[in-house]
């Protein structure tokens, strides 16, 4: 499938959520070997500084460095990779803040797997 060679970084402090997101991405053609994980915002920032990704899924509330700060730092450093926030932060104000800071899409937990699949495909189509 066309997503097979795309590289994804999942930044979430929950290993369970990283696993859930990985499984959903695999269902829409991503290869597990191209999906990497980071356990907090700082790890995410460090990882994208070293490697190029085609998509970043970013949680908001994490220890060490939150996802919003990581988003700001990634964009400030020139990272143009599409970033989707996947977070429990569901308030409209939060969504607006994230989009203004450079997030390309936003998905609130809890979510239907179909919603994630659809948003990922939409996001990738919009930047291809």
């Amino acid at each position, binding site marked *: 499938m066309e997503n097979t060679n795309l590289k994804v970084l999942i930044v979430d*402090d*929950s*290993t*369970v*959520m990283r*696993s*859930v997101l990985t*499984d959903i991405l695999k269902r829409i053609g991503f290869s597990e070997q191209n999906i990497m994980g980071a356990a907090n915002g700082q790890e995410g920032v460090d990882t994208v500084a070293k490697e190029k990704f085609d998509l970043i899924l970013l949680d908001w*509330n*994490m*220890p060490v460095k939150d996802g919003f700060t990581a988003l700001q730092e990634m964009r400030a450093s020139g990272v143009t990779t599409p970033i989707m926030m996947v*977070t*429990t*932060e*569901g*308030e*409209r*104000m939060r969504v607006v803040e994230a989009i203004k800071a450079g997030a390309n899409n936003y998905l*609130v*937990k*809890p*979510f*239907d797997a179909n919603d994630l699949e659809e948003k990922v495909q939409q996001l990738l189509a919009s930047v291809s």
Partner: protein
Amino acid sequence: MTASKTLDATLVNAFMESAQSVYSKMLSTEIQLKEVKAEKEFSGTGDISALIGITGPDGEGMAGISFPFELANQLVAKLMYREAHMIDQATRQDGVAEILNMVAGAAKSILSEKFDATYKLSVPSVISGKSHSLSGVKGAPFLIMIFSTEGTEFQIYISFKKED
């Protein structure tokens, strides 16, 4: 109805709605609310609990969730599309924390929109072991919501002290 009773009802409704959403969307299962009660002290009746701090402009507190081990394994397995026997202790702890994170996060969004206020959550922590006890916020009672799913009960509890 007093302000505190209004807050209590709003809290209960927000957590009930958010819990139902998490179970339905992420765990493919339904839950039934069996009882809501207020107690001064609360000993978790489950084997594993996750706790999360809540702060807002009108006060601070915490929310928690408690499960028997077997139910926790079943629910984390559903979340991960796995079999329950595949869930080890570390995964169970992480999964229970994430379930609470989603429930509390969704409830926080409901409360923030309703009261036009910004509430913040801490990163969840987990207590594991039979007969563990939990402390709430000093001067605030526990609101305990007893749910049933998969034929087993679990509890969501909230202890929130509103500033005068």
